[in-house]
């Protein structure tokens, strides 16, 4: 009975979770080789060669990885610091409720907030003008649509940090990190050794899969880099949509090439992440 139920569950998972994704991937793959599509006339590798030679994809991949990686590293570090430093203060009912609020704000809204705050004609620019720090708007530094993706990274941090903070606070309680830290001190470790050898490893050991998944999620983020990013290089999702939505039908296939490569990279990363999740670390 149980195995029948699990079989049905597996079939539903296949039909709803895997089949549409797989069908879309096959369609994109065929499009990228010119085997489907109104403007295509049969198998060709010219779109793959073109994407490879233009270097747009590689630039976009490196740029996206840097932006997502920087955002995750800063967010995780900030959330860990807040957890270890202000855990008791964050347990106050109002603060623990307030931490959930940023999670309810959609990415597109957060991006608009950032734009309103950091743009040359935005809130901070006006404050700087009012205080006489700048005499005209263009003197305000480029914080949105800028080459260093400061606006994108700031928005990602504001969205992601509360999530990791809640996660770490829960793991801190469930894994009894406070008692482990006391035990570590009792065994002779000072506060710094306790943080580096006990508190941080326990927190990260329990959460690194989620951290990895969030990195993949940010790698493929669309709305925030669309509003706050620059023209070139663009983050992967923005690049893919730009290529696929082009009026020039002959270049549509190049968008699918990028989509196929991106899908393979992200799927491989996700599979590696989950296959290593149950590995047990041994040291003699």
């Amino acid at each position, binding site marked *: 009975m149980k195995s029948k139920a699990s079989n049905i569950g597996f079939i539903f998972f296949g039909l709803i979770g895997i089949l549409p994704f797989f069908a879309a991937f096959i369609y994109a793959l065929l499009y990228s080789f010119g085997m489907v599509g109104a403007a295509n006339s049969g198998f060709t590798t010219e779109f793959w060669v073109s994407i490879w030679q233009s270097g747009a994809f590689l630039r976009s991949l490196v740029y996206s990885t840097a932006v997502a990686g920087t955002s995750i590293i800063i967010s995780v570090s900030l959330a860990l610091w807040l957890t270890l430093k202000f855990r008791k203060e964050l347990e106050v009912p109002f603060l623990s409720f307030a931490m959930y609020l940023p999670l309810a704000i959609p990415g597109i809204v957060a991006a608009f907030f950032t734009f309103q705050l950091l743009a040359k004609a935005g809130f901070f620019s006006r404050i700087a003008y009012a205080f006489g720090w700048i005499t005209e708007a263009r003197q305000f530094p480029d914080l949105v649509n800028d080459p260093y993706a400061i606006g994108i990274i700031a928005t990602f941090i504001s969205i992601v940090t509360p999530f990791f903070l809640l996660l770490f606070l829960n793991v801190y309680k469930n894994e009894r990190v406070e008692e482990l830290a006391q035990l*570590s*001190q009792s*065994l*002779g470790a000072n506060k710094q050794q306790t943080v580096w050898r006990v508190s941080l490893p326990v927190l990260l050991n329990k959460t690194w899969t989620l951290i990895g998944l969030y990195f993949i999620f940010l790698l493929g983020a669309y709305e925030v880099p669309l509003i706050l990013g620059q023209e070139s290089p663009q983050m992967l999702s923005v690049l893919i949509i730009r290529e696929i939505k082009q009026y020039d039908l002959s270049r549509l296939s190049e968008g699918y090439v990028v989509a196929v490569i991106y899908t393979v990279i992200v799927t491989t990363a996700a599979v590696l992440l989950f296959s290593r999740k149950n590995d047990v670390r041994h040291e003699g």
Partner: protein
Amino acid sequence: MFLEVQHIVKSFHKEEVVKDLNFTLAAHQTLSILGQSGCGKTTMLKIIGGLVRPDGGHIYLNGNLIDDVTPEKRSIVYLYQEDLLFPHLNVFENIAFGLKIKKINASEITDRVHLMITSLELQGQEKKMPHQLSGGQRQRVSFGRAIITNPALLLLDEPFGSLDTGTRARMQDLFKRIASEFRITSLFVTHDLKEAILMGDHIGYMQSGKLKVYESKESFIQDDHTGVQKEIDFWKGLTK
């Protein structure tokens, strides 16, 4: 005396949890302390271990006042009620933790840990993670990790409370052997009457934050408050 506890008091939110705690303990001896849940046993141990600050009183260890000494410098290890192992480290690494903190060289750590693993009858389990061990094995690792650092004083807070009867009996034997082998000075807190009598060279009884240490096991058995007489009467009643 090796350990001298003088006039320790501690309150939480106006509730006096530990009341004028006074006792002494000679080196290489075990004082078992019997008491019901909530009588202040854990707070007492945490105060001695430096994990909770008392409201008043003094503690001397080997003649030195340790009131202001931080937990990591007291050379007192507090063992939790549960077998609290570091979940990200395997058996070897858990036992080696205190030695690595002291930056002892790697080959000496390996030798001492393997010796301890043999003493604890944990051969072949070195690379297992805590979740792969049984309750008794976890408790043994917990012991080994504490003892290997050669602490001046070991504080055991109902260490066998979560074990089944058979495992508990084996662990009691093991602790007595290890305590004798490594010449351990310890406070052994328990709410089990038989365990208190079995484990301690001396016995104390704690009730509502006050501790009474008995001069002999006989005087402990004679005292009506400890419940030993009731227990004896119960078993005698069964045999009639």
